């Protein structure tokens, strides 16, 4: 197939369409900073989607559960081995992204006779000292985007753009507490969820009203539950990650 370039390009495009179709209905994930660190939030119907990778690094993803698990283990194993062989401080998100994950994604995506990863990944590393908090978005084709203020993953780029626009309008310039941050993250998630259910229409109509946001949160939480993980700089232990309990989430969203 490689001796016929146009067929290769066509095959890649087919693969892209297939993966995006598979990802379209994925429950979005929102990553936001707050006064003590960073938050990752989504809504799930059972399977865990937010994971600890290392002391200051967390991961979330949408896509096929088997691919998420496979790549989660790859990055967790790599970080653990690096930390043991040198030091915990030598593990950072930049290295894990660029030298482990990005080209793994790209290679699988472009090897058209093999299986592609149906996945989009969002990783966050909280700053230490002068280092800024970093959100890293990795697309299924290996493209990497780094953000410092916030980041989202959704089924399509249109959905992600709409979520990011909502955040741009609503996000405060000052650091907010965890309750305010969770509430904003949940509304941003709802924008993405609403658009993912509109299918093709979402490309033309990305307007989501406050009423629609409230409605979709209410209906989705009938079947699913909020999952939220934080990297909290104020924790005394080396490990800054923890999953919030349902009681904590309940208290924070009702404040």
């Amino acid at each position, binding site marked *: 197939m490689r001796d016929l370039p146009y067929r290769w390009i066509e095959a890649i495009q087919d693969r892209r369409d297939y993966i995006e179709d598979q990802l379209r209905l994925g429950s979005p994930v929102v990553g936001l900073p707050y006064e003590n660190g960073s938050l990752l939030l989504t809504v799930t119907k059972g399977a865990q989607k937010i*994971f600890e990778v290392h002391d200051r690094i967390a991961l979330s993803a949408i896509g096929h559960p088997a691919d998420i698990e*496979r790549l989660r283990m*790859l990055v967790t*194993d790599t970080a653990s*081995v690096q930390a043991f*062989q040198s030091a915990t401080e030598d593990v950072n998100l930049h290295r894990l992204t660029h*030298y*482990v994950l990005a080209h793994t994604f790209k290679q699988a995506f472009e090897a058209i006779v093999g299986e592609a990863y149906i996945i989009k990944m969002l990783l966050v590393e909280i700053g230490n000292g002068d280092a800024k908090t970093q959100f890293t978005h990795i697309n299924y084709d290996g493209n990497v985007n780094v953000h410092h203020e916030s980041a989202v993953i959704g089924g399509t780029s249109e959905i992600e753009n709409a979520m990011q626009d909502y955040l741009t309008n609503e996000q405060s310039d000052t650091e907010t507490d965890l309750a305010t941050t969770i509430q904003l993250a949940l509304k941003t998630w709802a924008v993405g969820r609403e658009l993912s259910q509109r299918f093709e229409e979402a490309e033309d109509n990305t307007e989501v009203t406050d009423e629609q946001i409230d409605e979709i949160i209410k209906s989705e939480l009938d079947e699913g539950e909020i999952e939220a993980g934080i990297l909290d700089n104020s924790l005394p232990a080396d490990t800054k990650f923890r999953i919030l309990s349902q009681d904590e989430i309940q208290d924070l969203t009702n404040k």
Partner: protein
Amino acid sequence: MMNHKGDFLGLLRHADTLTDETEVDRETSDVNLTTKRDLFQATPKPIRDALQLTSKEKTIHGTTLEIPEATTVVAMRYQNGIIIAGDRRATAGTSVVHDRAEKVLPIDSHSVLAISGAPAMAYEIARVLKHSFQYFRRSQLQELSVEGKLRTLSRLIRDNLPMAMQGIGAVIPIFALYSPQTDESENGGKIYFYDALGAHFENVDFATTGSGSIWIRGVLRYLDRWGDTQLENMDQRTATITILRLLDTASEYDAATSGYNAKAEIFPTVKTITHQGIDTLSEDYLKDCYVEAT
């Protein structure tokens, strides 16, 4: 080969194949995952040679096991959990080489290893243990059970047996933890003592190890049985004062154990393990307790 069993030592053995499964060309990567070392079996050659020489000179054939453990560490159950302490002195023969050694090492949020024996191996065992517990939690998405933690430490100590048999690498730790699942009205603190082959024994009320331990084990027994307040019923301040007095007693009779160095303001390391986690008692708090203790 990816490791899905949460076995950290297993992961290290297969570290060089980590990315092979994903068909990544590692030659283009800065990530060097090819170094595969089992630190407890592949000792560097110069050290192996030195060990063999020592072994021949001492003609130890496994019938005599001398364990150099110049230190004193002690743990006891008190009202809120476990209090665990160690002196700060590190010695080489008759020389004091360091006065600020940390011998009470947090392993995870609710467990602590207090070490006696060869520092190089003891610190490495603590490091492997810490990484093992973390790796299990991160890969398996749950905490390793108490039994799992105990067995991991057993395995590390047993793997260290050749070093122990040669008389220079033995490690005899105390492992103390608090089981967070325990109802808050009960004391979830547990203390385990290990032998050089890795067998572990639960010490219900207290444990002490190191060269200074012989001077205080009897005292602990006496206090627990006939003291005004049983160890387990002591509040934190009483338990701290008791443990400082015990270390002071050990330092009086054991040259390898340091007490409180008032001039340099060097205090023993004292930690508590409770339902809330590990807390290192501050120097100000210890100084205040010393006023009452002496």
